[in-house]
């Protein structure tokens, strides 16, 4: 209980400090110490709580509820103020609707509202807390270096580093609140805080584009917020205690399916599933640590968190299957779009959307095996994706570009950062690394589920697309260009700490995932489903062997070998200089340039995104229709 309160409140205290600090050194120390403390406490939480099962913490929550209500009204007013200032009528309308719904359930005050234990902790909460605590903290540390560079490069705008860290720490606090809250009203409160924080962070640079994209993110998430609030209103008129997650999940599907569909919808908006994927792509205008935070450990993970919590309700219902279809098609289509993207951050954005789609598909199917895969996906994705974003951020400051084509031969120009990126990419799609293990588990889970074949086929094609865009990026990084200079220089120490830690985590989690599964995921499944799921011992041993091989093979460079002669690449017989210039047919000196395939006629963003939006919208409509007509339980 103390640990929970510490994790929720301590980041807020740090945030308050951010209002006061003036000097860079002070801020550096406060952020570093806070990050270390938050990380350490989440680990302490793991060590002390992992074998305790599910614990509920009951206390008189009335004063807190009142405070939350006041703060929620404050958030609504703040958003209204922004919306009026920028004349965004859609946001004004949505905020008013949402506020009305909040006032409705606050005024209703039925017995259902009284949740005995507003806070709780179980193994899944611990996993989420570890992701938020460790990865979130590392991103904070990285930001110290990044933001200094950022203002060196953008001298025109006023330095708002303090505001930046203030919002980030509030964000982290809200995420802890979200994963520990049992009362749905509390979950909703923290949900709204994350919406507000992401709005402020996306619009942080205050450029026209940033403001526009921030409002896109805002209205989409407000739509989700409205659905969430509507679900709470519905539950308010149910028997006592129904607003607690513990009650919701044991109350029988027929009763709960309508609010579950509403909350599922809210989860889709927050997890940036089609048709709401555009806000996450637009969020790329924010400083890179923000993207890392939104994509890996916070925001979008809040969306899938709530979906996984409700998975037992979704299991075996039409609502669940339509939800799973939205996720599966988002996975397929977003993976396709990623092939056509030349901008590194956009590739990462679409890959996030795709992977979240897979998690949503697992949650919608909702069997124990599917949830096992979903939780593994959440863990591995958080680590690899934050590593990728932070590396791209560092590279961007050095080479002044986010284009993948400009990263040609990065292994020569910035060897250490490129190595980090290669680890990150390998983590995203290659055996025996994390994401592939999860995809494997997902195939296994889908195939055993009723009507699972459709999802298997979508997954198989989606991962073939995934392979293409990751491998070609990796190849680009590993090109050996003979004439390039090393421009890596001194990478900021804070950035370096974060990058190395995340790369280490990518590798270590692959070794210890059976342990994570055994002490956290399997007990969670056992208490929620009564069954377990896991990969057999044999296969784990084989994967560990592969991992060792991959770690050992680079050492082969050290093996004794025959003397070799270096030759220039084959240029079709045309004389070429060592830096790959050659004489063309007209006698002019031409530089040889190589570029990747992007296959935009097939995988163009506009065409595919339109198809995805239409398709997924249809499934969402079917989902609500099924929820309304008698629950649609199969």
């Amino acid at each position, binding site marked *: 209980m103390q640990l929970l309160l510490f994790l929720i409140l301590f980041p807020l205290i740090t945030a308050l400090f951010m209002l006061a600090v003036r000097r860079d050194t002070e801020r550096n120390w406060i952020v570093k110490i806070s990050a270390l403390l938050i990380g350490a406490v989440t680990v302490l939480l793991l060590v002390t709580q992992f074998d305790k099962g599910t614990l509920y913490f009951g206390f008189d929550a009335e004063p807190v509820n009142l405070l939350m209500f006041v703060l929620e009204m404050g958030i609504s007013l703040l958003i209204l103020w922004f919306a009026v200032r920028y004349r965004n009528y859609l946001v004004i309308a949505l905020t008013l609707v949402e506020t009305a719904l909040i006032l409705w359930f606050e005024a209703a005050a039925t017995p259902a509202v009284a949740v005995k234990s507003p806070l709780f902790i179980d193994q899944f909460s611990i996993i989420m807390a570890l992701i938020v605590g460790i990865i979130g903290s590392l991103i904070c540390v990285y930001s110290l270096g990044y933001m200094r560079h950022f203002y060196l490069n953008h001298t025109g705008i006023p330095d708002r580093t303090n505001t930046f860290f203030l919002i980030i720490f509030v964000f982290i606090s809200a995420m802890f609140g979200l994963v520990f809250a049992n009362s749905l009203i509390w979950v909703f409160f923290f949900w709204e805080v994350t919406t507000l924080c992401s709005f402020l962070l996306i619009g942080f640079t205050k450029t026209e584009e940033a403001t526009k994209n921030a409002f896109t993110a805002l209205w989409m998430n407000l739509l989700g917020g409205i659905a969430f609030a509507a679900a709470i209103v519905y539950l308010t008129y149910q028997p006592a205690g129904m607003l607690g997650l513990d009650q919701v999940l044991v109350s029988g599907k027929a009763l709960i399916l309508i609010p579950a569909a509403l909350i599922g919808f809210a989860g889709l908006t927050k997890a940036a599933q089609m048709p709401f994927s555009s806000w996450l792509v637009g969020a790329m205008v924010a400083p890179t640590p923000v993207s890392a935070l939104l994509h890996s450990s916070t925001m979008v993970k809040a969306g899938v968190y709530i979906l996984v919590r409700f998975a037992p309700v979704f299991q075996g219902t039409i609502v669940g299957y339509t939800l799973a279809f939205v996720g599966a098609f988002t996975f397929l289509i977003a993976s396709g779009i990623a092939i056509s993207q030349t901008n590194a951050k956009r590739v990462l954005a679409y890959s996030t959307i795709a992977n979240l789609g897979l998690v949503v598909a697992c949650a919608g199917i909702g069997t124990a095996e599917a949830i096992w895969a979903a939780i593994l996906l959440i863990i591995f994705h958080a680590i690899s994706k934050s590593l990728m974003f932070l590396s791209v951020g560092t590279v961007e400051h050095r080479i002044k570009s986010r284009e993948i084509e400009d990263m040609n031969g990065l292994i020569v120009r910035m060897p250490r950062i490129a190595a980090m990126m290669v680890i990150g990419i390998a983590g995203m799609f290659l*055996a025996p690394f994390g994401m592939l293990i999860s995809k494997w588990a997902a195939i296994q889970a889908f195939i055993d589920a009723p009507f699972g074949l459709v999802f*298997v086929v979508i997954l198989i094609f989606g991962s073939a697309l995934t392979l293409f865009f990751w*491998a070609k990026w990796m190849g680009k990084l590993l090109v050996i260009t003979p004439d390039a200079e090393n421009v890596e220089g001194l990478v900021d120490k804070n950035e370096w700490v974060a990058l190395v830690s995340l790369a280490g985590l990518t590798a270590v989690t692959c070794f210890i995932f059976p342990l994570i599964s055994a002490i956290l995921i399997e007990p969670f499944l056992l208490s929620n489903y009564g069954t377990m799921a896991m990969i057999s011992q044999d296969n784990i041993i084989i994967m560990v062997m592969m991992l060792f091989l991959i770690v050992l093979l680079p050492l082969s460079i050290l093996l004794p070998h025959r003397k070799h002669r*270096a030759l220039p690449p084959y240029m079709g017989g045309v004389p070429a200089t060592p830096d790959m210039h050659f004489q063309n047919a007209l006698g002019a000196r031409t530089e040889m340039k190589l570029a990747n395939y992007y296959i935009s006629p097939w995988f163009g963003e506009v065409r595919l995104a339109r198809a995805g939006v239409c398709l997924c919208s249809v499934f969402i409509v079917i989902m609500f229709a099924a929820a309304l007509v008698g629950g649609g339980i199969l």
Partner: protein
Amino acid sequence: MISLAGAVVFILLAPVIGGLIAGIDRKITAHMQGRVGPSILQPFYDVGKLFEKEDAVVNETQRFYVLSYFIFAIFTGALFFAGGNLLLVIFALTLAEVFLVLGAYAANSPYSHIGAERELIQIMAYEPMFLLAAVGMYVVTKSFNVSDIAGFPGLIFILLPGVFLGFIYVLTIKLRKSPFDISTSHHAHQEIVKGVMTEFSGPALGFIEVTHWYEVVFLLGFVYLFFAASPVLGIIAIIIVYLLELAIDNTNARVKWQLAVKSSWVVAIILGALNIAALYFIGRV
């Protein structure tokens, strides 16, 4: 259960069998083209000669990629013949292929670069069908383990004819035969020279050849799996399939990569997925 013996036998015998298959391949191809052709042992002489050649590289990292490709391709086959998980086998195969592609990228050469892109496109084309074949076998035998699938009493082919045909279709890509020898071919006189392998020479190219032999044996092992209940039928199937691939190779011109990808995907969905869906349907009724 994993049997180490299967893996060891594969590691020792596969290069011999693979090399012989390559020799027979060349002999039959020669006869189809009205030539006499080289001795069946010619592939061994060729590879032996490659290993005696000077070690000329574009850059040093190539050695690492070739070695990784070699080891993981062997790992793939060894895992298969040890009776391991079929999905993991396919993932390991992909890993091996990716190392080859990275080696081609690293060379910074126009021909090997295009070869690398096309090789990735080929992986994208064949992988769904491979995975569907594994899924189909799971649906029939309720296990992904090669040992269980091989021990299944019924003839898997009877239940999965569509999947089998689909597999044969993409097998052409893996065997690097026309019309799908897009990223590289057995002859270095196509429009992109030798594509993905252009910049590998001497011992490195020797290793790649041997790796291909390992791969061929593994792939034919996969074909055998469809007929595992009857070993005689399995051997006959392998022979027929290989002769069929040779006939296709010699009667077809190379197609564009677009057609290769599209047709492979269509085949995977129509022959592969529908076949499995039909099994589900029959199983339910």
